[in-house]
């Protein structure tokens, strides 16, 4: 049903990437990017109006990806859908062969291009997992009505080891697992020490045996991007050493890729990590190289 599930359950080191759907009524760029990633990743996340900017839907983008032979991970936020829309969308996704669903609370609309919008947040991302878990296990919608056919779902969730309060982050991860998460993709790791600390408490609680954790990585493209990530993106911490490396680099892109490569090498050594999730924002073309440099494929 899900190739990503097979890879993770076989104990192989999984690789996922991310495609940002365009602000367009055409899926052509998705198809091109999917073709680029086809032979090197296990699955691709299609973001859901990320940073609350209106884009072609994750559902349509996932379908385009699937048609190109790349397994999609449908992202679904709680910002724009109530439980009726969520359940309906997940039935539709499963019917069309989209089985990986990533449950997210979503970026607040105040960050996007529809600042005046009312948000939904009927349920939060943990409750969303509970609802989908009930649908796939019991063949019932929330509240108990029977489904003629239950959806086949491989459920994903996010974890941010760099947000506060740090002690609560592992507890929250445990809640997501209890609610039904099969795999976790973390926020981009730059601060490897803090990530190591996070993973160590994850393993102490035995959570790495209950869920597949993919560590997020993000290649930095420029010094400005590094500064922006540090100052404006909540829940991302960038060590000062990294910022100064980007600042003094003769070729910032190469430096960014070198940092990314070093990060992946460190991540591979950390107990309990089952894969990496590469978030190359508007730079999807570099993903095959990152994978090759880090020797992530057989």
């Amino acid at each position, binding site marked *: 049903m899900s190739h990503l599930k097979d890879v993770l359950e076989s104990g192989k080191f999984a690789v996922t990437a991310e495609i940002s759907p365009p602000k367009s009524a055409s899926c052509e760029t998705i198809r091109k990017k999917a073709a680029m990633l086809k032979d090197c990743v296990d699955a691709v996340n299609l973001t859901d109006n990320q940073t609350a900017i209106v884009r072609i839907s994750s559902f349509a983008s996932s379908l385009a990806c699937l048609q190109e032979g790349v397994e999609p991970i449908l992202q679904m936020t709680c910002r724009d859908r109530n439980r009726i829309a969520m359940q309906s969308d997940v039935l539709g996704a499963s019917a069309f062969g989209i089985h990986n669903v990533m449950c997210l609370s979503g970026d*607040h*609309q*105040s960050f996007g291009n529809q*600042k*005046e*919008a*009312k*948000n939904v947040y009927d349920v939060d991302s943990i409750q969303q997992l509970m609802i989908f878990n009930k649908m796939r296990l019991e063949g019932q919608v929330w509240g108990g009505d029977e489904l003629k056919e239950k959806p086949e779902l491989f459920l994903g969730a996010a974890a941010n080891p760099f947000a506060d309060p740090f002690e609560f982050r592992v507890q929250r991860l445990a809640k997501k697992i209890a609610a039904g998460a099969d795999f976790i993709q973390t926020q981009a790791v730059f601060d490897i020490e803090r990530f190591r600390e996070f993973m160590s408490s994850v393993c102490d609680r035995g959570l790495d045996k209950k869920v597949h954790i993919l560590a997020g990585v993000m290649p930095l493209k420029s010094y400005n991007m590094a500064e922006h990530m540090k100052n404006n993106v909540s829940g991302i911490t960038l060590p000062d050493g990294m910022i100064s490396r980007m600042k003094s680099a003769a070729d910032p892109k190469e430096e960014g890729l070198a940092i990314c490569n070093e990060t992946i090498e460190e991540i591979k050594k950390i107990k309990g990590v089952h894969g990496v999730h590469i978030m190359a924002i508007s730079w999807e073309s570099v993903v095959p190289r990152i994978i090759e440099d880090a020797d992530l494929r057989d």
Partner: protein
Amino acid sequence: MIIAERKPISEIISIIGNNKKILIAGCRSCASVCMAGGDREVATLSEALGLYSDLNSLGWEISEISKERQCEKEWAREIAEEASSADVILSLGCGVGVQFIQEVSGIPVFPGLNTSNMGGPEEQGIYLEKCGGCGDCTLHLTGGICPIARCSKSMLNGPCGGSQNGKCEINPDTQCAWDAIYQNLKRLNCLEMLSEIIPPKNWIPSRSGGPRKIIRKEMVLSEDEKKIKEGLE
């Protein structure tokens, strides 16, 4: 005013749990007017909980206090001070009151009420939600009736297809807000206002923009002024 109603006794008992010394705190403002948490309701609840404790040999020690408002720090502090020997405070104020008391109290403060809405009494014992608190009032466009709070779909451009004989489709006891708006504007001879399309609303001033804070700069005290005020008290 804030409309609230008392939680069922069984729920209050379960919230109290294993605590023995309970201070029931009433509020003489909104919660009193909607007959949910004033002096009288505090006394009634105290008696009911005392009876429950006696019947089950729980040995609860229940005391009572009521203040003018729980939603101001001065009053909240007085309640917290009174509770020095209690295990918990059971607030019969609205959700704002519970939070104000908890902020200054070293012991847990539990809610005894469910806070419902901003509204008022229609007649004795009947309370109706009136204001959606959207932060951008347009009552001048809707005949003095708030469609945010009173239309089940918060529609802004007239009634949906579920309006029948002045009632809303969700419940025959629920008035259709847009039917009421129509009748009111007709009475006020302003029906032409209904032909205007109200565009997508700006929800930033509402809860969708996050927790709201209003700062009246001219009223805020400087650090020096705060010290002088503290000295006077």
